[in-house]
């Protein structure tokens, strides 16, 4: 398309350039909503989808929008919910954190959505949190995160640190005998909090402060030469060394390319990542990276009939046989099915009734088992450790025997070690201090 129509007054052009971009984004959203709104019926239940379709986070979040549309379509084919059709309301917060809050407000007050599925980064979640609490609506958050939060209006279907980071560190410690740790992350809230928890955890395991190196880089960092070199150097102290990477999305590709080029092999210094999934690897040649690890609660390579059916329907829905599936998609799959069950149990979409009904709901996950919604609004999950293979998929090398219950407040951080969240009847508190017996953060948590 040509960037601008030819016959325009000179003065209007400056503003028009910016306006055109917004128009393009809005157009895309319209197309998505119209499709779902086309069927008339005895009433509809609206479901909000709050994922960035433009800007930096579009790379990760667009897929989640698509998987939600697929799940809603499937539910409608099964006859909808409570005899009504589900209707998706897609908005584009454009990777812009304050815009997340605005769009959330619109979804709840204007579109009257019964529940919203959305957000990726912790910043965006923190930005919409007050809106969901103020307007008393429900958010399903599908991404692994740093914990230290427990809101009545949010259901966290991604992993808390003890469901991802800590089992991964345990695996390296026990299976690979790692004694020296590099904690490398992007400079924002998730890596900083996770590394704080990990550092405290490693110290309880007897790791000396000298054997921990912490390194932060800006978003989208692309020149990793001397950081990789310093990791190599850190690994020459005669102890087995590993890198725990909380490096976010886009910066991973140049990081892994540099690792490959500088010859850091997984057998020498393994890198275990918490934000690298099938989607991120789709942009790199993974042959030099074979053996580096990732910890998730789901991998596309999980071998069971449920997962196969999910992958098949995903490829049919997207009409693309090469589309990969990943962990946050599974979280939405679980979250959506939980919400459906919760609404059926409550017999209404009223937020208060559904929030109470959701606790205790249990649905199949795709890793072969059932996930249950716990009183702390987090779900039980198995933890899988996978090694990167030459074809960009993960080879699962370890799986926790049972399911892990999320620790929303980390026991390794001094401020939060006595806190628990429990939204069941008598307690109804997101941050209850078991030592003092008081609800420290009120109902707001």
């Amino acid at each position: 398309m040509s960037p601008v129509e030819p016959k325009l007054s000179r003065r209007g052009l400056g503003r028009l350039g910016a306006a055109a971009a917004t128009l393009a984004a809005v157009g895309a959203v319209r197309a998505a909503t119209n499709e779902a709104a086309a069927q008339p019926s005895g009433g509809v239940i609206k479901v909000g989808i709050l994922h960035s379709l433009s800007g930096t986070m579009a790379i990760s979040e667009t897929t989640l929008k698509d998987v939600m549309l697929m799940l809603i379509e499937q539910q409608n084919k099964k006859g909808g919910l409570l005899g009504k059709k589900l209707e998706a309301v897609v908005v584009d917060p454009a990777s812009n954190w304050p815009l997340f809050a605005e769009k959330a407000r619109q979804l709840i007050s204007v579109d009257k959505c019964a529940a919203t599925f959305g957000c990726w980064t912790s910043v965006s979640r923190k930005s919409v949190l007050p809106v969901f609490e103020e307007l008393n609506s429900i958010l399903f958050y599908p991404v692994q995160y740093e914990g230290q939060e427990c809101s009545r209006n949010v259901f966290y279907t991604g992993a808390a640190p003890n469901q991802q980071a800590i089992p991964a560190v345990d695996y390296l410690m026990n299976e690979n005998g790692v004694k020296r740790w590099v904690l490398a992350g992007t400079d924002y809230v998730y890596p900083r909090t996770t590394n704080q928890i990990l550092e405290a955890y490693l110290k309880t395991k007897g790791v000396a402060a000298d054997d921990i190196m912490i390194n932060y880089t800006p978003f989208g960092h692309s020149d990793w030469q001397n950081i990789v070199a310093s990791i190599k150097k850190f690994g020459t102290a005669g102890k087995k060394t590993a890198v725990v990477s909380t490096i976010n999305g886009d910066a991973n590709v140049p990081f892994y390319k540099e690792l490959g080029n500088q010859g850091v092999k997984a057998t020498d210094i393994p890198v275990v990542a918490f934000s690298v999934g099938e989607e991120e690897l789709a942009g790199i040649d993974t042959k030099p990276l074979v053996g580096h690890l990732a910890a998730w609660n789901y991998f596309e390579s999980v071998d069971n009939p449920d997962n196969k059916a999910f992958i098949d329907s995903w490829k049919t829905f997207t009409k693309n046989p090469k589309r990969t599936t990943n962990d946050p998609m599974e979280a939405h799959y679980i979250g959506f099915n939980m919400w459906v069950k919760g609404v059926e149990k409550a017999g209404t979409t009223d937020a208060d009734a559904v929030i109470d009904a959701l606790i205790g709901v249990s649905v199949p996950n795709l890793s072969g088992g059932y996930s249950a919604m716990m009183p702390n609004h987090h779900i039980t999950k198995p933890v899988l450790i996978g090694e990167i293979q030459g074809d960009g998929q993960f080879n699962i090398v370890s799986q926790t025997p049972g399911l892990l219950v999320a620790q929303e407040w980390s026991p390794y951080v001094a401020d939060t070690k006595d806190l628990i969240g429990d939204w069941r009847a008598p307690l109804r508190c997101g941050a209850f201090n078991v030592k003092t017996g008081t609800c420290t953060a009120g109902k707001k948590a």
Partner: protein
Amino acid sequence: MLRLPAWLMLVLLVLAPLSARAQETDDAYAALAGSAGIPSAAGFDSVRRGVEQLATSGDPRAAVVIGALQAGQLYARADRALFIKQPDGSFVDARSGAPAPDAAGLRPVRLNNAVRSAIDAALGSLRLFAPDAATRLAAAEAVFKSHDPAALPALTRALAKESDAAVKTRMQQARAAALLSSGDASEADRLAAVAMLRARGDIDARGFLASLSGQPQSVATAAAAAITAIDRQLQLWSILQSVYYGISLGSVLLLAAAGLAITFGVMGVINMAHGEMVMIGAYTTFVVQQLMRAYLPGIYAINLLLAIPLAFLVAGAIGVLVERTLIRWLYGRPLETLLATWGLSLVLQQAVRSIFGANNRDVDTPWWMSGATQLGGLTLTWNRMYIVLFAVLVLAALMAALRYTPLGLRMRAVTQNRRMAAAMGIRTPWIDALTFGLGSGVAGMAGVALSQIDNVSPNLGQGYIIDSFMVVVFGGVGNLWGTMLGALTLGIVNKFLEPVAGAVLGKIVVLVLLILFIQRRPRGMFPLKGRAVET
């Protein structure tokens, strides 16, 4: 009658170790099948043991089987029989090498890092006698990494036969490492081994020496001294290494900024969509690779060489189009240009996102750009070296084009004195369009280089736009030499600050320093002099 028992005894004597050996090999093969199916720590352990046993069993097919395991081509049946998948998709029996047409229900034998290390070590000692010197060198290095005392006899035999000097040194180092790890070497041997590793002097030697424990006092002291000596040496190299990193970062900045030096530096257009031209160049590379893979697989290896001119043409054409439809209405109005081009950058990003999708695209790195080479204590990665070279070539070509071609002459004439140039019969609007196209085209070529080190995603350009402006302003607007020196200075300063201050703070410090510098010298390092500046 007496002869029979003796004969029997002989047979038994020969057979006893043989059958023990065969038993061992059987065990090894059975153990190798351990990790097919559901992953478990015990399964991987079994495979690791299998690899170690097989490597020492003397089985003639050991190297083939372990090699297949490394390549992920080893499959196991439920009864633990092993098969190797051939390149044509058929299977052969791993044990005998005979074709196995009835192979069914096979699962691949899985690897983890512990198994992979065992494979490296096993293949290392098995390949010490390979006919190819490069293979022997890699094998010796693998043995050095595993420093397994069990490899000592093989190393001693290999050393006696070795004729290649480089391989011999590597083998001696491997032997030194294995000696130090073994329980029964003499103190003198150990001291000699430490000296050998001290002479090697790289970070691997340092890492190995630091991991030693339980050595006699004199050896421990020698090892500590060796570590100090190696550290001192590495310190010197690390300064050179930082300079290299700086030059390489500088060359990336230079590539990204070279086009902007034309559009902003020469023409004075604040082009916020410059980064998107870079991004379009990177996507052109992606498309070229896709098309060549489909239609011209024979010459696929040179895809980047083909992508460079195409990226120049595509980005250049878009640049001309943008100038004709948008920029030319806005000359002399910097604020409106800024807003319009910023909007344009969003439009281009979203357009690419709609066409190619929001995900990263996989751009191949050709084999000659992968990996690194060692120069003394310096690690030089090939992709960065080619980018440095490419940046120099692009800059040289750009300067030559401006100085020696008729078009360059006209460009300079128009930017220096538009009305005089027009009076001399130059079609100034056309020259404006071509100049903008040239700047955009150069940005497109930068995109080809950046596709090798960064994400090919719609956001690619955003990461470089600020840096590009910084380089151009710092170097001195309108001066290509200034752009080059500006890029190199920023690159090197950045790389020296990063280890001290961290990547985040380092960037901030560079920005603050730059602001202070611009305060003192608003026209940058190499300001243009003369009448053109005043008008």
